[in-house]
């Protein structure tokens, strides 16, 4: 019996060592992943994820330290792209509550200080010194950086409006239709 | 003026089909064969049938209420009734009552509800029930009797029947072997098929059902009529029944030609055992068979070949239940590989090439 135990122990040690050596020398360089992840992020460095910028978030993602759902401006499309790249399933349930938003300038309050224009990473704000500013909705991805710098709180975030162009059918609620039907039968 | 809430997308027209109607038609198709068999095997069969069906309904109701699903509404879809019915038809007619109850528990609770209820089960519930019983209680499950039609001489009366079904008092003299079982036993005693065939009922009796067997095994002709009715009503298509019978017939016929002493003929295989019930009512179960026509053909041929293999080489004389269960396991993968080709795309899902026009 001792021979059996001994030989198994030796085998275990040898094979374990072999695996260890292999892991060290045949390791896949992980850096490319970081680059690829960075590619998927909006690149506007808004910092809403809690990291300084997109690169830092990408690095944290690559190390597995951050959740894929942190990028608010990127929306669901970005979350899914990140999740696919990392091979994880994204829990988008929490994210869905936050609808896409864009910035809106309350014209009466704007003093034309241009601070927001300098802050905007996508050049989505038009205007000049002492003149009223406006947001180009198509270029605004809702990072809300401008909201923070506005000295007169003239910028607010508003949900992207549902129009005939972007409306779509909601997911059918089978349970609900069932209940409705039964209610219908009751009276 | 607000008329309605537009909360449902088109279409605003629906066909008349429903799950309940479908199940009901299947039950209707089974009724002639069932009535004939209940007549053929008398009161004990009627009692066992009632107990089995009732047990299935009770177990279904219990499972539904445990799962928090609407009990009455779901029972009304008749699916548990059909499972119980088919299970009862696969039992020896004079079997004790507890066989039906145990079968019901396995069929409904284990095979159906532990997978998530109607539509979610991988295996045919009735066949799971039957198979569990066959493996666990081989003697009770293979004690066949010769028919004693209701009110005929020697047929058990109502009181006798109570003793048979609920008292476990099986009269000795009546038991008999089924044709498939007989041939198998004789073969094991090195008596060739040609010789043992002489003892089994003739083709006409086999077709009409005047022979020993479970309720679904006898009366091939009434089962066939029911199957044709379902085809006429478009509840089932020809693909599964024909391919099951075709697979079985071709396999049996080839081997019969090679060595008639060892292998029974294709015709014998077709009319004996539960071939017709299996081909028309068991293998065609929507939930556990493939959804595409091509898949159904593959599934059917697989069932047919497996039935023959099991009957011929395995330890059991009848193989319909095993064959169907084995093919049930393959259904998901058959479905995945037989998806139809989408319009304007090739099998891989790529757009078709644009043909050069003349």
């Amino acid at each position: 019996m001792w021979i059996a135990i001994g030989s198994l122990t030796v085998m275990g040690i040898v094979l374990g060592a072999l695996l260890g050596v292999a892991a060290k020398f045949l390791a896949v360089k992980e850096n490319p992943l970081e680059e690829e992840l960075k590619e998927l992020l909006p690149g506007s460095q808004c910092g809403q994820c809690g990291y300084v910028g997109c690169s830092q978030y990408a690095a944290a993602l690559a190390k597995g330290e951050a959740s894929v759902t942190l990028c608010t401006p990127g929306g669901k499309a970005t979350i899914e792209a990140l999740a696919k790249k990392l091979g994880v399933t994204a829990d988008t349930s929490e994210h869905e509550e936050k609808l896409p938003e864009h910035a809106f300038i309350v014209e009466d309050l704007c003093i034309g200080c241009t601070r927001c224009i300098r802050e905007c990473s996508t050049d989505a704000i038009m205007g000049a010194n002492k003149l009223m500013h406006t947001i180009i909705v198509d270029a605004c991805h809702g990072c809300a950086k401008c909201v923070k710098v506005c000295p007169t709180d003239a910028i607010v975030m508003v949900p992207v409006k549902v129009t005939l162009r972007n409306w779509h059918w909601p997911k059918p609620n089978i349970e609900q239709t069932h209940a409705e039907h039964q209610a219908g039968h009751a009276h | 003026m607000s008329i309605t809430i537009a909360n449902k997308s088109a279409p605003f027209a629906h066909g008349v089909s429903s799950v309940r109607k479908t199940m009901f038609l299947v039950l209707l198709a089974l009724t002639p064969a069932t009535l004939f068999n209940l007549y053929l095997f008398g009161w004990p069969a009627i009692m066992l049938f009632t107990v089995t069906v009732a047990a299935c309904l009770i177990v279904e109701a219990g499972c539904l209420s445990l799962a928090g699903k609407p009990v009455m509404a779901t029972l009304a879809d008749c699916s548990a009734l059909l499972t119980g019915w088919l299970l009862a038809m696969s039992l020896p007619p004079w079997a004790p009552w507890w066989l039906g109850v145990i079968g019901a528990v396995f069929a409904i609770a284990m095979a159906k509800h532990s997978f998530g209820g109607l539509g979610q089960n991988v295996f045919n519930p009735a066949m799971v029930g039957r198979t569990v019983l066959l493996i666990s209680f081989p003697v009770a499950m293979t004690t066949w009797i010769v028919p004693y039609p209701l009110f005929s001489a020697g047929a058990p009366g109502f009181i006798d029947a109570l003793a048979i079904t609920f008292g476990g008092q099986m009269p000795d003299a009546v038991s008999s072997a089924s044709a498939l079982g007989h041939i198998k036993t004789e073969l094991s005693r090195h008596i060739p098929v040609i010789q043992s065939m002489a003892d089994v009922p003739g083709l006409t009796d086999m077709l009409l059902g005047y022979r020993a067997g479970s309720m679904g095994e006898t009366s091939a002709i009434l089962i066939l009529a029911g199957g044709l009715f379902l085809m006429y009503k478009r509840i089932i298509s020809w693909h599964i029944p024909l391919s099951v019978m075709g697979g079985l017939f071709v396999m049996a016929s080839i081997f019969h030609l090679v060595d008639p002493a060892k292998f029974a003929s294709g015709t014998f295989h077709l009319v004996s055992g539960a071939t017709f019930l299996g081909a028309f009512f068991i293998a065609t179960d929507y939930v556990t068979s493939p959804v595409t026509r091509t898949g159904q053909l593959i599934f059917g041929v697989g069932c047919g070949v497996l039935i023959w293999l099991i009957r011929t080489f395995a330890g059991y004389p009848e193989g319909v239940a095993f064959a169907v269960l084995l093919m049930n396991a393959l259904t998901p993968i058959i479905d995945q590989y037989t998806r139809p080709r989408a319009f304007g795309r090739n099998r891989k899902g790529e757009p078709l090439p644009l043909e050069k026009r003349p």
Partner: protein
Amino acid sequence: MKLFPIRGGIHPDYRKELTSDKAIAALPMPATLYIPLQQHIGAPAEVLVKEGDMVKKGQMIARNQGTVSASQHAPTSGRIRAVAEVTAPHPSGLPQSTIILESDGKDEWAELPEPITDPFAADAHTINERVSQSGIVGMGGAAFPSAIKLNLGEQKKLDILLLNGAECEPYLTCDDRVMREYPDAIVDGARIMAHALGTPRVIIAIEQNKPQAIEIMTKAASAFPGVEVIGVPVQYPMGSERHLVQAITGRETPARKLTADLGVVVHNVSTARAVHDAVRFGRPLVARVVTVSGGAIREPKNVLTPIGASITDLVGFCGGFAVRPESVVNGGPMMGQPLPGLDAPVVKGTSGILALTAGEINDNPTSACIRCGSCITVCPCGLSPVDMSAFIRKDKLEVAAKLGVMDCFSCGSCSYVCPSHIPLVHYFNYAKGVLNDLERERQKNERIKTLAEVRTIRIEKATEAKRAALAARKPAADSAAPGNAGEPKATTEEKANA
């Protein structure tokens, strides 16, 4: 002529007899018309009028803008009350920009463009220009601007103009009536379109459940050797463009290609009539025939309706509701859109207004899928609704996309046959909406990324330029008087920050 089979399909209860034998009746001009700027696929038209303007019938009141768009014309003479947001004929009940026109009761025509006297001598461009000017869109329901489809002849070699008179949707008979009452106009319009497209053949396909239309159209076409009328089998959805082309030519349009790539251009029969009116008389599209039907309508009719008439007026003209409808549908029952109310106007793509009772709809609560496979058997696109809906229900939209949900054109056959009454098409519409949203979001993210990158480069360049300027100025600043030291100091700070 030999026809080719198409896959799947269903045979619903057609109920066309409610309206098929009633002649087209004209709706008395309503006091107010609501003309949406967008009644078509593409960009909304640009308003040409303002509050208080007086317009004449047929006058252009909104001009097409961009490549895919269509103009709008005043359906009667009167005064523009406003350009405002009005409920759209859409399930969401959302509003859209709409011109509100008050009729002056005179119904006076504006000065119309000159008729094209010999269209067969005119070049394709002239005809397309006229069709575009007249605001004509596909009248089968999709409302795609027709002029763009007529331009296809310039890019591709075409063989057949296929005129779609299949009208496979239950209840609808407007095309049937138009064919029976205006056969010559349709044949003439078709020949003009074929001339513009450069197709030698015109095939008019009509489902065989309209024998009178087939007979009348055959007679009208008999004078012209290039025009054939073909009765096609009654099988929903025969009227789908791609499937009709397959039935007639036997060829399957590859995914992401057009039927024009096979040399076939499909137009609706009513569109041909509109082209005839525009070319021969200079009349723009200001009215259309709408089937008003369904079990809840007291007197079902085919109504010649000015564009912009409110659905309330239309229903009123047909005797109102006999019973309370379960649903009011814009279009046919299979592919139409439910309407949340009757406020919305009739638009160019409105083929029918159906008020359906619960009995006609015959919907039931959803129960578990029993995997019967009927949906696969009937799907004309060869998809697997059973699998796609299961994945969508579990929010695995990318798998559904892989299975081809974007190829589904929501014909409704699967939902129709489903014994478990699973809202399959609703699942697919939802999935298509979300997938389109994601695609839009992805495109926006791309754009944002480019913008952010451009900005980064610009800032870098600016900093670089500043640094260079500073370096150039430094010796000068050093030699300057110490009293002026404030500025350079600030610059150094800024430099440190950078």
